[in-house]
């Protein structure tokens, strides 16, 4: 299993039956593939609906039904469409149980940067700032490093998306909780040693005695 799917699979375990979840574009979208069949999870799409289903089959795309990334998707029975004000009432108002999104940088205060690299890439924040501010649980799902550079830092260097917002970080190396005392490594991919993970991290990890192993990445 490649890193992306390994991460997505582990993130899916964080979701609870009945949750309302918003999945970001890219890797986070893969999380949907690993939600247990028996769970009733409602996916929110911030452009204006609940009950998002899988991608539309080729030839069956509906031009009036895309997700927040512009991809043609479907809606499940019991889904609901609404406008952007209602969509962000849901998001900002704390009615989304979990949001999963990528990051350029995360730091030990739970600060998150994922919307711009000054002078280089300024796509805009879209719905991300509202999502990480409003969702009950903010899960960052990403590769541990970017071409060898640390992404998990003592302090973010890029413009922030939100302050003190991240609850959990899931990478191909491990699972980390953001706590008042710093970043707590709760699970580790057995492929890596604690030292490996620490070396790939720009903040000092807190390593508990009962550090658990993630499922092997085969």
């Amino acid at each position, binding site marked *: 299993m490649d890193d992306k799917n390994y991460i997505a699979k582990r993130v899916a375990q964080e979701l609870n039956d009945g949750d309302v979840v918003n999945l970001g574009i890219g890797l986070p979208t893969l999380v949907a593939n690993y939600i247990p069949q028996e769970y009733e999870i409602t996916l929110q799409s911030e452009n*204006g609906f609940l009950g998002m289903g899988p991608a539309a089959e080729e030839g069956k795309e509906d031009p*009036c039904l*895309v997700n927040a990334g512009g991809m043609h998707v479907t809606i499940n029975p019991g889904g609901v469409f609404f*406008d952007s004000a209602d969509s962000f009432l849901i998001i*900002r108002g704390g009615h989304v149980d979990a949001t999963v999104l990528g990051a350029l940088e995360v730091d030990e205060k739970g600060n998150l940067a994922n919307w711009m690299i000054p002078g280089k890439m*300024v796509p*805009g924040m*879209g719905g991300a*700032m509202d999502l990480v*501010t409003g969702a009950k649980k903010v899960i960052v799902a990403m590769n541990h490093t970017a071409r060898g550079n640390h992404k998990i830092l003592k302090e973010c260097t890029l413009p922030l998306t939100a302050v003190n917002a991240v609850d959990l970080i899931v990478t191909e190396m491990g699972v980390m909780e953001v706590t008042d005392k710093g970043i707590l490594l709760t699970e580790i991919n057995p492929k890596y040693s604690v030292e490996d993970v620490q070396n790939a991290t720009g903040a000092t990890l807190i390593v508990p005695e009962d550090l658990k192993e993630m499922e092997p990445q085969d």
Partner: protein
Amino acid sequence: MKKVVSIKEAVDMIEDGMSIMIGGFLGCKNPFKLVDALVEKGVKDITLIANDSSFPDVGIGKLIVNKQVKKLIASHVGTNKETGRQMNSGEMEVELVPQGTLAERIRAAGAGLGGVLTPTGLGTIVAEGKDIIEVDGKEYLLEKPLKADVALIVGARVDKKGNVRYTKATRNFNPLMATAADLVIVEADEIVEVGDLDPDDVMTPGIFVDYIVGGSE
């Protein structure tokens, strides 16, 4: 009161330098005929308010490529490289607004509210230069109402009074923008008779709509 007009009559009301809100989300969907007519007419120095700047060859993306936009207020511009280029070169001013804040600022203008108190953007560059208001010990950013000279929206079924029903994911910013502009023009997939829409099914009351143009039919 004749509300149904031609695309040409509609676009004739839109002049250089106006602020224009345009509904849609990544081109799903803009009022394509109205936008194409704006491109053709070459209306310039527009302040464009929209969720995003679409793709270079889709809907409002063309207004950017055609350099008709002086200032863009949007939440996301990553799908149109020309937006980034003009922003970096200084040819076009871009104000990036969190999507939920954008929606709520437009609604506030429509609703006669003085602004929006949101936690979104606190501690980020979005908060720069803005007032922070404390309510019961929690801080909120004061974001100001956002209105426009014109709103161009797109509806699925529109009756001749201007009552609008949207379909699926195309609702997005349209109902909000309809409340916050001096002149509101809706592009209708289908124009129906008054009474054809159940009063429970209307999503934008006709009192907000000044003119209707036929769309994709």
